[in-house]
């Protein structure tokens, strides 16, 4: 294992310390337990939004804490959900009296730990609502599975719900908008290489030099199928087709096209993917009204990318365009 780290046990704490130093204008970091809050939290009267989950997906979630997006992020150990204590600590730190919305990616561990934290907060008199994101079309959604995973679409939910909370919407409205974004977002990813969890020290799975994983998760889980490496344009179609069929998206739709890097893929490749994805959407009469390209929901050093398509309407476009000031997403101020 080759990493710029000290003791694997300290990866999350040391990274949080560096993050706090580099972005002290935007965030404050608590270390025991570890959570990241807006430096001006709690914002009185504003619905607070928190998210979190295993580390290793940076900038998700800490990079999205700040004006117009998240009030707090709770990083667990790498790829492992945080426990209820830091989540509860974050809830208490950011509650401004208007209630707290938890945005949780659909993984059993995250769901159970945030659920427990919510119980503690409710017992403490804090109103908590939870929205579960599950935009990954690679996983069949059925009563007989843990359901679809929450992946890159989570960033769009956090940005748009964050803008709604910032403009003063109440808890129910913010939760409703988060649900709406999640309902209109579909994602699917591909991995060219696995990633190495620091405390494991070995690749999360094996891939031959000419193999790629289609339908990869963001925790180094293997994907749905393993195929031979193909030209980028073919891979884009393998990801985009199930996405478009699932909602479904139709001619005339306005969408946000998000090409997300898994961490180790050079930017040129992400733009090559974006290029063909935009081409395909255009052919189908779908308008790319907004776009996002970059490493936002990563899997450590994994090479690969995911494509997310979000159905837009005027309200979502306005909330997307609203000012945001976080370490990883910033415009309008």
């Amino acid at each position, binding site marked *: 294992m080759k990493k710029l780290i000290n003791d694997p046990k300290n990866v999350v704490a040391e990274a949080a310390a560096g993050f706090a130093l580099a972005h002290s204008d935007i965030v404050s970091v608590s270390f025991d337990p570890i959570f990241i809050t807006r430096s001006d939290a709690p914002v009185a009267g504003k619905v607070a939004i928190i998210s979190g989950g295993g580390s290793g997906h940076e900038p998700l979630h800490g990079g999205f804490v700040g004006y117009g997006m998240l009030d707090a992020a709770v990083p667990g150990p790498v*790829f492992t959900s945080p*426990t*209820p204590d830091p989540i509860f600590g974050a809830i208490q730190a950011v509650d401004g009296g208007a209630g707290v919305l938890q945005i949780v990616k659909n993984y059993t561990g995250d769901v*159970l730990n945030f659920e427990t934290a919510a119980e503690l907060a409710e017992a403490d008199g804090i109103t908590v609502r939870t929205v579960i994101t599950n935009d990954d079309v690679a*996983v069949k959604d059925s009563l007989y599975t*843990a359901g679809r995973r929450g992946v890159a679409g989570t960033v769009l939910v956090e940005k748009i719900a964050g803008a709604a909370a910032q403009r003063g919407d109440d808890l129910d409205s913010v939760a409703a908008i988060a649900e709406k974004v999640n309902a209109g977002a579909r994602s699917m990813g591909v991995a060219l290489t696995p990633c190495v969890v620091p405390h494991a020290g070995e690749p999360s799975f094996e891939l031959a030099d000419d193999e790629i994983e289609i339908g990869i998760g963001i*925790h180094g889980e293997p994907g*749905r199928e393993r195929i031979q490496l193909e030209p980028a344009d073919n891979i884009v179609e393998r990801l985009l087709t199930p996405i478009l069929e699932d909602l479904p998206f139709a001619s005339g739709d306005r969408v946000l096209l998000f090409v997300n890097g898994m961490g180790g893929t050079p930017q040129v490749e992400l733009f090559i993917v974006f290029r063909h994805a935009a081409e395909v959407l255009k052919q189908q009469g779908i308008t790319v009204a907004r776009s996002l390209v970059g490493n936002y929901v990563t899997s450590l050093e994994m090479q690969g990318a995911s494509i997310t398509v979000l159905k837009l309407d005027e309200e979502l476009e306005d909330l997307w365009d609203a000012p945001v000031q976080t370490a990883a997403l910033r415009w309008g101020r």
Partner: protein
Amino acid sequence: MVLGITWATSWVARTADVISENRTELTTLDRAIGDGDHGENMDRGFSAVRLKLADLPEGAVPSDALKMVATTLISTVGGASGPLFGTAYLKAAGAIAGTSELDGAAVVALLTAARDGIVLRGKAELADKTMIDAWTPAVDAATAALAAGKTEADILAAAADAAEAGAESTDPLVARKGRASYLGERAVGHRDPGAVSSALILRAGADAAAG
């Protein structure tokens, strides 16, 4: 031996030992059909538990030890297994609350409550390829052993045997809960890590009773 606080603390201590001994194996299993952290998660939790064993007050009873394990796992493990095992120990403690010496019926009540706690949180059914596939056979075997008039030690041994067989029984299954469920058919042929760690926990309980 009688199953009092000595047995309970010995069970917990032995569990902490076998979990750290099997940490790599559990992580390897989880890498195949999960995200490769189960050994790390469990070891993080039970290492914390081991440190807290010493703080158990004079005159503590078995339920105190299990309650300590529950709260410690909940606040240190994270992941899916943290809340699940945490709830298991919490309910188990509740089922034997205050009792200073457990008879066979109490042992079966403890195991049953633990299993029910996991189902309550995780909604898994038998053959979903989860830890439940170790716990439910264990509860059934313990119940049968009790009915057959076995000793407490034999009841725990029967539970451990059944849990180990139950863990093995997950090999051919497609998962319906947890991360492994994302893999569909690709999970077939792999053993569920949580079922294996559950069997380790139950074996430690039997060993502690065997003396």
